[in-house]
Every structure is written in structure tokens, then in C-alpha cells.
């Protein structure tokens, strides 16, 4: 994978952890939304971030997705420093959130072509066809996104996020607003496009999040309460810890 992405600028370091955070904080005034977070995540892992509302999960994810800058600390994604070269990081990441980030008045194909052009994908046409095929939307490619159901929009969202072959994909509450059937399709799709990519998901749903992950992290009041590989975790103990954390509530 590393070799094939060598055409991207700021080539990632082979063997570098997918994520490497050191004392990352987001502070404004006296409010510490994210407080001294440190952890490493190996490439190819699936990390689920749990925590009560207002624990700083989304803030952390937005910082990692380069949408907001950490106040202090350093974060590296695929070995590239987030603060020093955010543009290089951007070439390696994708984001799927509960907001579709799609233009309702453009067709599925136009939305994907827009992204492809902005990223500078050379084989854009081919890549768009493939992604539409993968998310089973080829038959609706000429329809404007406004006419899509929530589930279809979410599938197109996946296609959009993976168009430029990101090494790290962020999922921000991807299940919100999806019915159980759509959730199933979504999970299958994620598994299908998984390959050797690293995934980082923020979710409310403990069971779902735990089932898919390889690493789990619990955040409360901006701090890391627990972080471990799934194999080292006893689910019952983990659930108890999570319940206690949620009980701590919002600071």
C-alpha cells in the first residue's frame, strides 16, 4: 500500500504508526476540551473512541481530520506532522460523518467528480465508476443526491471519502439517522472497503463500536480513561468501566 501511494506528496513513513499522539490538548480559555491525550495506533487497526457527550470525542476527531488545530502537543498521521504539514496529512485521510458533505443539487457522479478533481485523481473517471459500483449506486449515478434515501446518501458518502484512497479513514457517528437495515449494509460496505486501511470511529453505540474494533479508547472530560487492544479487553469489565464513565457525565 505504501508503495502505491508514492505519487502523493509527503510520502508516509513506512512502518510509522497510523496515528501517533503526544500530549495533544485543545484548550480555549479555561475549558480543556481535549486534555493531554497520548497514544499510538498501528497501521491497519480499527479504533473505536467511546465516551459520554461532551467528552471531547468529536473535538479529537476533528483535530485529527485537520479541521481544527490542537492548542499544544504533537500529532502525527502516517508519520506526517499534523501541525507542520496539514495539507500532506489531508492527502492521506478521509472522513465519513453524519453530515453527508454532498451537494444535494448535484448528481451522484458530479459530486464524486468534484472531489476527484479537487484531489487531482488522474484516473478519475475509472475510479468514480468503480466506487459507484462498490457502493451499488451505479444505476442512480445521474440522479441528484437530494432524491436519495438516508442510507443511499450514506453509501455515496463512503464512496466520496474513499475516492482518493486514504490510508486513514475517520468515522464520526456514522450510524446516526440510519435504520437497522441501512446499518447492516453500511457495516458490510466498510468491511469490503477495509483492505489494509486504518479506521478511527467515534460512536455512542458501545456494542456496535466494540464489535467492529480492534482497539478501544474511552474518553471522559477530554482525558483518556482507558486505551487497549481488543484482545486484551474483557468485555464485561469494559462495559462496566464505560457505564461508570458515562455516569461521570459532562464536566
Amino acid at each position, binding site marked *: 500500500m505504501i508503495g502505491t501511494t508514492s505519487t502523493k506528496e509527503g510520502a508516509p513513513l513506512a512502518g510509522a504508526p497510523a496515528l501517533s499522539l503526544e500530549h495533544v490538548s485543545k484548550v*480555549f*480559555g*479555561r*475549558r480543556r476540551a481535549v486534555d493531554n491525550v497520548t497514544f499510538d495506533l498501528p497501521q491497519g487497526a480499527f479504533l473505536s473512541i467511546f465516551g459520554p457527550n461532551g467528552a471531547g470525542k468529536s473535538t479529537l476527531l476533528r483535530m485529527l481530520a485537520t479541521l481544527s*488545530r490542537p*492548542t*499544544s502537543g504533537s500529532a502525527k498521521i502516517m508519520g506526517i506532522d499534523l501541525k507542520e504539514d496539514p495539507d500532506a496529512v489531508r492527502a492521506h485521510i478521509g472522513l465519513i460523518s453524519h453530515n453527508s458533505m454532498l451537494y444535494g443539487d448535484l448528481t451522484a457522479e458530479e459530486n464524486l467528480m468534484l472531489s476527484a478533481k479537487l484531489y487531482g485523481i488522474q484516473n478519475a473517471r475509472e475510479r468514480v465508476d468503480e466506487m459507484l459500483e462498490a457502493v451499488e449506486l451505479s444505476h442512480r449515478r445521474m440522479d441528484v443526491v437530494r432524491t436519495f434515501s438516508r442510507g443511499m446518501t450514506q453509501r455515496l458518502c463512503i464512496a466520496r471519502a474513499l475516492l482518493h484512497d486514504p490510508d486513514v479513514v475517520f468515522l464520526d457517528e456514522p450510524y446516526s439517522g440510519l435504520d437497522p437495515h441501512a446499518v447492516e449494509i453500511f457495516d458490510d460496505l466498510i468491511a469490503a472497503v477495509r483492505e489494509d486501511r486504518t479506521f478511527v470511529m467515534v460512536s455512542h453505540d458501545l456494542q456496535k463500536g466494540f464489535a467492529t474494533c480492534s482497539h478501544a479508547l474511552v474518553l471522559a472530560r477530554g482525558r483518556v480513561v482507558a486505551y487497549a487492544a481488543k484482545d486484551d479487553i474483557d468485555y464485561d469489565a469494559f462495559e462496566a468501566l464505560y457505564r461508570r464513565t458515562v455516569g461521570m457525565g459532562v*464536566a
Partner: protein
Amino acid sequence: MGKDGYRSPQTGGVLDRIAPVVTLIGALLSTAGFVLAFTLAGPVNGATVNGVEVIGGEMVSNQLLFSQKIFYFHMPVAVTSMVMIGFVAYFGIRFLQTRDAAWDERARIAAGIALLFVLATMFTGEMWERFEWGVWWTWEPRLTTYFILMLLVFAYFVMRASFDEPERRATFASVYGIVMFIDVPITFAITRIVPSSVHPTIFRTDSGLSPDMLLPLLLSLFGMLCIAYGLFRLRLRAQELDERVEHIKEQLDEA
């Protein structure tokens, strides 16, 4: 936050300790300036405002003479308000550079004091207009641009009230504080750009102000600047204490 040698601005230092004294000096100076405006400065022929004339004992119009004294209050207050808006822009730039909430707080407080002085300017200007020019309002260039300046300061606060998320509010306010400063040099220079203006051009080498007028004017100006400084530091300190109390309360709640 100690990175790159940057230190967050502090309160409680020497700048705060001298604040009450400076305020007092400012009050004394502007009072002195105001008194001197009546005792020392000669009366003025109000009919030819442009190119102010000192006439000594020779009076042209008794009615116009007295209202001219507003000028010794009006001009220093106006200049002070512009200086404060300049500080709003400066603090905005500092905020965007550092992302430190302390700078945004300073910008907000500076804008509050600017508003106070802007209102005082508008009020004294309004008296001036009524008694010197005999109208309540006219779209004269200096007046108009200053009026716009007032609206900009209003807009600054309306905008702050429209955002809940503190960092976003601070960023937007800083940006607006910087762009709104553009109107200050325009207001300042408008009497030069549009010569039809009835406002005299004060800051020039041949301003036509005799020493007996210049002294009270400068005293008032310096006094007003001192008052603005004192108000700023005191307000800032009060704000900081407020926040500390809030913080302690929160910690007590959590415990």
C-alpha cells in the same frame, strides 16, 4: 503555552497597579483642560469654523462663542474612541496569531470602552451640530463616517451575541475587529479627502490653533487617554476575577 517564547498576557502586574492612579490623573487633566477651555482659551468666531479664528476681545456672536467650548471635550473623546478601536484591531491580530482567549477578552473590553467614547462623541457632536450649525443632523462627510464607525462598533457586539461557541466567536470577532478598523483612517482623513467638510482639519502644521487653545485641548486629550487606559485595566481585572470565581465554583460543584 510557553512554546516559541509566547507568554499569555497577564493581569495583576504593574500595569494594573498604576491603573487607579492613571485614571485619577486622567480625570484631573481632563477637568483642568475643560476649565482652561473656559478661562484660558479665547473665544472663537463660530461663523467661520474652517480656519478657526481667535478674536480676543472682539466678539462676533455671543451665542456661538459658548457652544464652541464643546470642542475641547468632543475632539479628545473622538480621538480616544478611535485609539480604542485601533486596540480592538490589534488585540484581534494577536488573537489570530496565538489563539489565546486572553487576547479576545482584551479585544472585547477595548470595544466596550470604545463604544462608551463613541457614544460620548456622538452626544457632544450632536450638541455641537444643534448649536453651531443649527441643525439636528446633516450627512456631512466626517459626521457620516463617524456615525458609520458607531454602527460598526454596534455590529461588533451584535455579532458577538450571535455565536455560542467561544473559539468561533472569538475568531469571527477578531476578524471583524480588524476589518472595521479600516473605517478609522477613512474617518480621520475624510476632511482632507472631501474638502467641503465643515469639520476643521486639526492635525496639521498650520492648524490655526493658538497656544491658548492648544493647551487645554492637549490636556483634555491626554486626560481622556489616561481615563480610557484606567477603565480598560480595571474592567479587565474585574473580568479576570469574575472568571476565577466561576472556575472555583465549577470545581466545587465537581468535588
